[in-house]
């Protein structure tokens, strides 16, 4: 990864933020784009690279603004999920540096969390917006809500249905394997059981879904 940025410490970042955006209007970002394409394909190596490059930056941002290690980890991981979703959506155009993008997302997310905790909003170092990320965050919020709904539905589903569904859809194991693992006599039996569970899960999920969309 090559940056044409002077390596400012986070504390001094905002002072130069306008400058940075101007510099990076046309970023030389072929490498970053390649990285994002790999991220979209759920490439572990790429994810790890991004993690290594930017985690410390985000950590010092959060820590310097009343956050803890756990906050830093949560915020950074959520930002990576936003990035991942955006990369997968196919409409992603990187019109700024990856660093700037992640930094802006984390900043927004953290501000929001502080608001939720009803902290007074401190005049925080490095808290000016760097690139607008509102739209991405809204899309993320929608997806996140759906994610939570499914998680909740699965939680209410109970065992062994939950494990069965997860084995089939999440771990993508085939029916014969599942049948032997869960102790069904044959794949058809397991399949029937799966459909029964699926029906219940659908009911739970759509009930939740309607609740949230009314």
């Amino acid at each position, binding site marked *: 990864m090559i940056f044409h940025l002077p390596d400012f410490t986070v504390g001094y970042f905002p002072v130069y933020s306008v400058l940075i955006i101007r510099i990076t209007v046309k970023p030389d970002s072929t490498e970053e784009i390649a990285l994002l394409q790999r991220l979209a394909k*759920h490439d572990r190596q790429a994810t790890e690279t991004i*993690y290594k490059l930017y985690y*410390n930056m985000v950590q010092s941002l959060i*820590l310097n603004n009343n956050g803890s290690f756990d906050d830093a980890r949560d915020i950074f991981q959520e930002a990576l999920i936003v990035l991942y979703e955006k990369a997968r959506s196919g409409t992603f155009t990187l019109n700024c540096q990856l660093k700037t993008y992640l930094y802006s997302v984390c900043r927004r997310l953290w501000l929001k969390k502080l608001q939720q905790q009803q902290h007074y909003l401190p005049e925080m170092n490095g808290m000016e917006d760097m690139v607008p990320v509102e739209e991405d965050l809204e899309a993320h919020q929608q997806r996140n809500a759906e994610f939570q709904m*499914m998680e909740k539905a699965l939680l209410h589903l109970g065992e062994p249905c939950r494990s069965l569904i997860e084995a089939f859809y999440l771990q993508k194991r085939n029916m014969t394997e599942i049948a032997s693992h869960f102790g069904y006599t044959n794949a058809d039996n397991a399949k029937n059981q799966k459909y029964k569970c699926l029906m219940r899960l659908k009911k739970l*999920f*759509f009930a939740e879904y309607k609740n949230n969309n009314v």
Partner: protein
Amino acid sequence: MEELKLLDAIERYLNGEMQPDEKTQFEQRRKDDPELDHRVVEHAMFLQQMDQYCEGKRFRNTLHDIHHELLATGAIKEVPRKATIINLWKKYKRVVAVAASIAGITALSISIITYYFTPNGNISEIQKLSQQFKQLENSQRQTNRELNNLKESTKPAAQAKVGGTGFLVDGKGYLVTSAHVVTNADSVYLQNVKGEYFKAGTIYINHLSDIAVLKITDDRFQPVKQLPYSIQKNPAALGEEIFTLGFPRPSSEIVYNRGYLSAGTGYNGDTLAYQIAISANPGNSGGPIFNEDGDVIGILSGKQITAEGVFFSSRSKNIFTALQEIRKDSTMEDRIKLPQTSSLKSLDRTQQIKKIEECVFMVKSY
């Protein structure tokens, strides 16, 4: 069952797993039956949601793994944040410096001013007074010494090594005290409240229960006909009010203290002892612990250094054990007889003490 088959068909259709002719048939049915169509759409949407969920879940798991892996390999570090205080300090360093110097200057000038304006004539007078006080004290001490000399003609010349308290368990001149008071003693002297000295010999020591039995060997000792208190054989009850008499002061003045029984066992669950809460000092060791009725329930033995106000007392039952062992071991002609009845019941505490104090002795071992 119907329902399951339908679901299976829908899922196979959506996954493109149907044979071509089955597929056309299904599509025909879908056109004819709006309800089926609705179900297909709904299921497609659900499957997409499921897909997204699985996607998200897998990515989240990966992130979690990566975080821990990187932490373990040290690629990322949880650097402690610069504390707010440090930030504040950096910000207000100059202000603090200015404030501190102003405060320093003010303090200095105030102390200089006070120094200049304080009248300094009184000091010598105060000193004089204190000297006079010392002179008084000295003469008083001299008088005391003379008085004591009269009484203590038989007093041993050397200073006592260890001091403690003991009490009569038989009017003929047998006393009980703590073992640690008379350990390593060349000779043991007793002093009563009147200041009279008696020589005594140790006839029994048990370090485990911290009990020693002494016998007064001096001829001048006049046996006490009946001891006012009795020795209790049964264990005492938790929370019982207790009091003790002892000689914590170097002068032969008897000191009274009271407290309560705070635990049925001693240090680390020692069943030979009780834990008591009382205010006592070195010199109280070996003193009798009485309950309200004036029965001896224990012998004060020590305090726990690591805790406040925790004292331990050997159980009175240990006295009985000691006497049994003495009887076994020795060929003493006169047997020690423990007092059976207490004449202190329902007396005032002051009257109780008045009766008891003659039977309590200061133990000095040399």
